[in-house]
């Protein structure tokens, strides 16, 4: 697929370039967000209040139904067998013993699996969801070490798990490329991300670097990571005639429905995907082979099939973040003004997917360097396809960039915050677009004050507490505002004044239903309990990815569009007897459970009154969000200033994060309580990235060596100090509700802030993640 898809992406990219030039030059008022969302000015409603989660009681009582927990009559249980070679073919596959085991209904292999097309890989079409585009159990080929080769189906999980140990496979191995250095030696090519080459240049950066008064030139490496959501990937597939229902754990229900329909050659509406609660996603709960295998197996045995991956299974067949090798070379004059910013390097992917970890994204808009050279090279390995994981690009890219900025500050003898402020750009350094809203300097100022940055001792190893060395560090956090096309929403208003919003969105911990209940209540002028927010069902309107920190913007713009349609409809049916008679939708707003004239609030009629006069039980409207042209008209990014204190043991080398503060500029915060959790959650995953997380990949045979939560270390309670977060709360005038996304920015900058603090504590620059104690002894 690589070549075809690359060509398709490139063509798409060229069209976008032409369109984006036109959009950049258009007047603000033509662009979504050109007229600020009226909710931004509405400061005394539900938005901005620290409301507890609307689904909190369900979650704390264990009553929230996750994918594996929806009762389905007659369900059978599946267990998977995984390949043990990286590349080749299955020479023999003996399933007889397994088939004869107690309780076994069938064993599905490439020999008897229903025929299906390959999954459409994510980014290859608007609703494509596949983690990659490899055929799913259709032939005897083995494409990675850990690829599923058999599905055992039995009446109980115990029976299936036992029987899978009785499946015997032998292989004919072919030469596999699993060694990163060897792949790089054979040659790399420029990465392509969402249709655009991951390569940018301003001026002659190499020349400017050579002429700079002060330079640093450092290499950084980051390992593979796994999402490790605590909920195992689970799906129940149930066919009724030619209709398929999937109870899934998904961050993209509409994409999954369309993609599976393509594979089975069915109409999209015949594949219904529901996912009311997702037990953590972080980019990992998309479409991988398990949903497809469950659907195929359910068709094969004509019974509903439940497939829950083992923890090892998640590592074997759900991709994670790939490794990166980065060079950051910075050149500055003696005053610290950047003359050259070079951020280049290489990442591994597969021939079957479209995600070269785009680690240069932060450098694209971070600093006003006179010259710039950014480049991501890719090599293709025979491995499980890598994928998006929280802040793809920014999480690991800020590690290289922001550690390098700290090194430059040290070399200049300058405070690292001062260095960053001196290089604040006035407009987007690459595109030249104006920023929609950028208050990073304010985030630095207020954060530094709260953290007590002025007490920092710039010389390393200057603070000791017994056998512990103490240091502080900082780094910039950054993540773009995205809003993807395809948003749509339906609003039903009933005669008792209750509004129900439906959108095919997702809740995996972000507090989606809570925040949008607040937003809808304010927009319609209703109390919170008069709003129901429904989501997580592919039959609802909208193609909404819970990813890219864009779901809130997508839902916000969709509901705004539906609300406008609702108001127009209400005015129409209100008729000439209403105090609203003669007004246009632009002249009225939601207030006190009804509509009122924006300038004469006395001209008001309740929804109940309008509906009852027109003898209607309810009205329903549906509308599509406008295309996200705002991202081509403004440079839209969230930012943060990250501060960290670490303690490093002089005897064991053990590093501990003792204090952390994130000071964010992400537009308006819709719910301070759930937002705090989002920020902290990102920071804690960043703490893991800095100090402990690594998916260990055996370069000899392409097998993941630590496929368990005992051997892949994520931060535990004892690793997590009290984390402070604060924010500017300055609304972005061009984003729905004034809010940019907050789900991913916390993991950005955190790794660098920790590494920089470790340098301040110990005098050691560790440029290879994770910073484990052996690197500090």
């Amino acid at each position, binding site marked *: 697929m690589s070549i075809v898809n690359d060509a398709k992406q490139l063509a798409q990219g060229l069209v976008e370039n032409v369109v984006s030039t036109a959009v950049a030059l258009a007047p603000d008022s033509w662009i979504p967000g050109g007229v600020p969302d009226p909710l931004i000015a509405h400061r005394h409603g539900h938005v901005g209040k620290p409301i*507890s*989660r609307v*689904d*909190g*009681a*369900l*979650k*704390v*009582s*264990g*009553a*929230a*139904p*996750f994918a*594996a*927990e929806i*009762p389905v009559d007659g369900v059978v249980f599946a267990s998977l067998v995984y390949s043990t070679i990286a590349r080749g073919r299955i020479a023999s596959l003996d399933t007889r013993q397994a088939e004869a085991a107690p309780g076994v209904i069938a064993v599905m292999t490439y020999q008897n699996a229903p025929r299906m097309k390959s999954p459409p890989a994510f980014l290859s079409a608007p609703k494509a969801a596949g983690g990659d585009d490899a055929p799913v159990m259709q032939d005897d080929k083995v494409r990675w070490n850990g690829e599923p080769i058999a599905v055992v189906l039995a009446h*109980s*999980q*115990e*029976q299936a798990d*036992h029987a899978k140990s009785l499946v015997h496979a032998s292989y004919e191995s072919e030469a596999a490329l699993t060694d990163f250095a060897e792949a790089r030696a054979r040659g790399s090519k420029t990465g392509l991300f969402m249709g655009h080459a991951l390569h940018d240049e301003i001026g002659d950066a190499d020349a400017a670097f050579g002429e700079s008064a002060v330079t640093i030139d450092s290499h950084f490496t980051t390992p593979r990571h796994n*999402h*490790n*959501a*605590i*909920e*195992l990937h689970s799906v129940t597939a149930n066919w009724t005639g030619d209709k398929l229902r999937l109870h899934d754990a998904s961050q993209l229900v509409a994409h999954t429905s369309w993609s599976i329909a393509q594979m089975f050659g069915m109409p999209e509406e015949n594949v219904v995907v529901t996912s009311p*609660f*997702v*037990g*953590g*996603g*972080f980019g990992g709960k998309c479409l991988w082979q398990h949903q497809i295998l469950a659907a195929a197996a359910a068709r094969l045995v004509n019974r509903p099939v439940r497939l*829950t991956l083992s*923890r090892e299974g998640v590592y074997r067949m759900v991709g994670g973040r790939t490794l990166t090798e980065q060079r950051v070379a910075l050149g500055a004059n003696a005053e610290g003004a950047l003359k050259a910013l070079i951020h280049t390097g290489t990442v591994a992917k597969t021939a079957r997917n479209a995600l070269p970890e785009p680690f240069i994204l932060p450098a694209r808009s971070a600093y006003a360097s006179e010259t710039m050279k950014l480049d991501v090279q890719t090599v293709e390995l025979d491995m499980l396809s890598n994928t998006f994981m929280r802040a793809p690009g920014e999480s690991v890219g800020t590690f290289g960039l922001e550690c390098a900025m700290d090194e430059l500050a040290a070399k200049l003898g300058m405070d690292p915050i001062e260095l960053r402020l001196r290089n604040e750009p006035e407009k987007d350094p690459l595109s030249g677009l104006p920023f929609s809203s950028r208050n990073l300097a304010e985030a630095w100022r207020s954060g530094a004050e709260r953290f007590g940055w002025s007490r920092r001792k710039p010389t390393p190893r200057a603070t000791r507490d017994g056998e512990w060395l103490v240091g502080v560090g900082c780094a910039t956090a950054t993540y773009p505002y995205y809003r993807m096309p395809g948003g749509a929403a339906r609003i039903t208003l009933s005669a008792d004044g209750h509004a129900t919003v439906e959108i095919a969105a997702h809740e*995996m*911990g*972000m*507090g989606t239903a809570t925040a949008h209940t607040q937003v809808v209540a304010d927009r319609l002028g209703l109390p919170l309990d008069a709003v129901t927010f429904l989501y997580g069902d592919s039959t609802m309107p909208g193609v909404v990815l819970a990813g890219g920190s864009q779901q809130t913007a997508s839902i916000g713009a969709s509901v705004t569009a539906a609300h406008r349609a609702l108001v127009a409809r209400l005015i129409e049916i209100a008729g000439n007897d209403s105090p609203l008679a003669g007004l246009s939708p632009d002249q009225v707003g939601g207030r006190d459970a009804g509509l009122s004239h924006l300038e004469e609030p006395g001209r008001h009629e309740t929804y109940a009154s309008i509906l009852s006069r027109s003898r209607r039980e309810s009205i329903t409207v549906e509308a599509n969000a406008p295309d996200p042209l705002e991202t081509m008209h403004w440079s839209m990014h969230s930012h943060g200033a990250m501060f960290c204190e670490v303690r490093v043991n002089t005897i064991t080398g053990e590093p501990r994060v003792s204090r952390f503060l994130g000071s964010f500029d992400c537009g308006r915060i819709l719910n301070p*309580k*759930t937002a*705090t*959790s*989002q920020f*902290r*959650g*990102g920071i*804690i995953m960043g703490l893991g990235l800095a100090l402990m997380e690594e998916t260990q990949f055996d370069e000899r045979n392409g097998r993941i060596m630590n496929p*368990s*939560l*005992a051997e892949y270390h*994520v*931060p*535990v*309670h*004892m*690793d*997590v100090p009290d*984390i402070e977060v604060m924010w500017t709360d300055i609304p972005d005038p061009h984003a729905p509700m004034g809010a940019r996304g907050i789900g991913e920015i916390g993991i950005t900058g955190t790794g660098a802030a920790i590494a920089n603090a470790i340098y301040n504590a110990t005098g050691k620059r560790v440029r290879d993640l994770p910073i484990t104690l052996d690197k500090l002894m």
Partner: protein
Amino acid sequence: MITINGTGVPLPDDLRVTLLDLLRDGLNLSGTKKGCNQGACGACTVLVDGERVISCLALAVQYEGRSIVTIEGLGTAGSLHPLQQAFIDHDGFQCGYCTPGQICSAVGMMDEIRRGVPSHVTEDLASTTLTLSRDEARERMSGNLCRCGAHNGIIDAIFDARQEAAE
């Protein structure tokens, strides 16, 4: 028979069935979660005669005659246990998947403190009375993983609920 949330339940016929799978697949008590099935994440924590047990590493037949309390037995959405309410108040969760295990674990943990059971961070091992410091809580809750990063809220909730219990 095993007693689960006060009700007698027959032992499974298949000796391989874990306590976790008996709860989830056999009894539809899906509040107890499966996060790894190998004792590494703590999502399946339940209380057996008041003590914390990782139910994925426990065969159901081992628990004949014992009394199990799951999250459903601690409180329901309409009638929450004080710790469940504290988790909501302090946003001690995001996705909610590890939450029942965290709550059951915290209930068992607070009882360990009351009984004077020391931990790795207990300074005076000879002391019979323990105080619940934040580090004691963190150390003792470290077997319950949370990937959403709700650690601060969880510890806050535990302290809040302890306060309430003391009053």
